[in-house]
């Protein structure tokens, strides 16, 4: 019996000390976490440049020299991280420091200062975001959006799914960038929206955008916004169209003022 009592006693002591340790860690952790919410280098103009040097040496192999990610290894586009997933300086710091468990993204034992430099760099290359306030009339913009855009796009819950969801787009991209996508949609077509048409043995002519494909099959959203899969062996006249399914809006069709109104509406939907 004696050894057992001894063990129980010992265990009790151990539990107390573990609890104390956990409390200490929690307190310490909180203060550290609080300290890490803000980038101490945020106002230092040299930080982003120094972070860029570290980025090219340590991060670019996976995330790409332009930080836009490498799809084949699932390395994400880092220019978009500030408008996705609710990232803050502190959360990006933590991701660099700790890595993402279970993924290819390792923990990095860099000094804190260097990680903050990286955070500054990533802030500096963030894609878009408004460079000037959106001045368009949101009410007019909503009417124009519903008439011209909602057939394919949506904001929030309303609209269609053939094109990208435009909620928050004004936080991610500049006015000029969004405007050029409206004027010349085929200049750059995003992954998941590349157009294709073909003839199916059983289902006739089909037009849509490519969501995925392998050597034997193709997965699309057709122009009726239906997700459909096909075996390539059943298809003919496969055409990978260079032009986006989105029509280009010339100034005659949509004036600069009207375009600004649409942007004003979209900005309201953030």
């Amino acid at each position: 019996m004696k050894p057992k009592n001894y063990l129980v006693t010992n265990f009790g002591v151990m539990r107390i000390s573990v609890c104390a340790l956990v409390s200490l860690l929690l307190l310490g952790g909180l203060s550290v976490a609080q300290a890490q919410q803000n980038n101490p280098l945020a106002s230092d103009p040299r930080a982003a440049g120094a972070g860029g040097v570290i980025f090219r040496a340590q991060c670019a192999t996976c995330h790409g020299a332009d930080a836009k990610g490498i799809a084949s290894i699932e390395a994400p586009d880092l220019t978009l991280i500030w408008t996705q997933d609710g990232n803050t300086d502190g959360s990006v710091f933590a991701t660099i420091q700790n890595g993402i468990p279970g993924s290819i993204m390792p923990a990095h034992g860099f000094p804190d200062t260097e990680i903050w430099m990286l955070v500054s760099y990533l802030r500096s290359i963030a894609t878009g975001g408004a460079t000037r306030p959106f001045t368009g009339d949101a009410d007019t913009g909503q009417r124009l959006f519903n008439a011209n855009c909602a057939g394919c796009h949506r904001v929030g819950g309303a609209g269609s799914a053939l094109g990208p969801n435009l909620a928050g787009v004004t936080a991610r991209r500049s006015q000029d960038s969004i405007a050029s996508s409206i004027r010349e949609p085929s200049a750059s077509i995003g992954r998941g929206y590349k157009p294709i048409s073909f003839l199916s043995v059983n289902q006739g002519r089909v037009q849509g955008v490519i969501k995925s494909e392998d050597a034997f099959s193709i997965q699309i959203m057709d122009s009726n916004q239906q997700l459909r899969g096909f075996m390539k062996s059943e298809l003919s006249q496969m055409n990978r169209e260079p032009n986006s399914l989105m029509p280009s809006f010339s100034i005659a069709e949509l004036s600069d003022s009207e375009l600004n109104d649409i942007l004003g509406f979209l900005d309201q939907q953030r």
Partner: protein
Amino acid sequence: MQTINFSKPLNRMLAGLVLMSLPLAVVGQANSGSVSSGPSYEDILQGFADSSRWLTYSGDYSSKRHSPLAQITPENVQQLRPVWTFQTGTTTRGRGFETTPLVDEGVLYVTGSNNYAWAIDAKTGRSFWQYRRNLPSDLTYGASSPVNRGFGMLGNSLFMVTLDAHLLSLDRRSGEILWDVVLADYRVGYAATMAPLVIDGKVIVGISGGEYATRGFIDAFDPVTGERIWRFNTIPGPGEPGSETWPDDADILARGGGGSWMNGSYDPELDLIYWGVGNPNPDYFGATRPGDNLYSNSIVALEAATGQLRWHYQFTPHDLHDWDSNQIPVLAEIEWQGQPRAVVMQANRNGFFYVLDRVTGELLLGKPFTGTTWAREIGSDGRPIVLNDGSKGCLPDPWGGTNFMPPSFYPELDLFFLTARETCATFVPEEPQLAPGQASFGGVVFIDNEQGSGALRALDVHTGELRWEFTYPSPSFGGVMTTASGLVFAGDHEGNLMAFDAESGENLWHYQTGSRIWGAAPMTHILDGRQYVLIPSGTTLTAFALPEE
């Protein structure tokens, strides 16, 4: 270090245990009565002679990955279907489940990502034991590539390398560690991922870490004691042959790169080991290392007894593109200009296919198998005629015109099957800051994500010419296996395991595994009269067979 002696007293003791338990065992099943001592070197040497076994990474020492099994044929392969799937529960986003299972006596021995390993019932996919190494939290190369390509095997011992750059011996019956030796200090940038090559009395291993300021090597260990027998440094020391291809600077030589992270092949008659060597470091920045930088991006032929270099051939002198030459060397006897010739073949990351005399290292053929814009021909001096240093774009990217995914050679057809990658990249070198444990690529690469495709290609080994190809929508890392029934099995980046007619290239069968096949090639074996084909993919290992009659 713990040492287990496999000499007779232990066997006698085990035999005694089995005899004591015989009255119970008899009820269950027919027992041969003798205690299995596991495969010997002679068994490995036999290669595919006993196709119930697959005892080394490529199935035999030649690395042809060409099985004589012929139950699955072009006529019946359409009926191939999954029999079981094993879930590893461990994953590596961004890389793959890169192992080749070994099999003996109906048990698969499989390594996985993050240094997991298993013994699995080949009939049902159920595991007997699982091993998982407690890895340190400050891994270097091993953190970014937490993969493993398989076990080596001898007797009751399995051999496995680790992400913290150790070599382990495990007891195949229990997964227990028999011994554990350090290959190198992982903290400065080393890791190990390859499948150990077991030859007579030696376990041969290579090392990863060429993206860090490290120096590569190839080691031979005693399989019983774990003692190191020899080491070949892939970058020479000051004054040694090959050092003249580097600056006269001991520091640079000591961190010259030259990883040896894939399996080599072995010619037992010549007693030579053939091994590919990786890129010099820094990968993209060459100004601090003028010269050819031997033995980076070379194949080396080493004397198995001593580790002494017999010959070498450098595919990419003074590499600036991370084109490791670790692709597995394939040994074959082919007719060359009317004469039988012992050759070693390699499809290289630089986009060229090479045939070399494996006795002398003489270059017999070097021909592009991709649209590489780096070079289009090899000069009469055996050196590439370089057209593009990478600043203009559209070479093979740093992942290469092919990579470590195993190819296959079909001797009766004289066809070499490989996975080709057509890619486009622009290289921008930049002098790196060197620090232990910090990667030093020496610049950045812009890879054109909009371009890129893959293909399974069949090359005529006499000319390097393309006999047929099957294209994939994206550059693939899936490996290849052939079987004597006239089939090619290959995996792709979209997750398909496929079968092709080896002569015509016609696709005969495919199965979508649900995750890309990356760095792994199929293997095959026969169990209770039924041929199985296995492929790792994502977090699964799946076994395929024809329906039971």
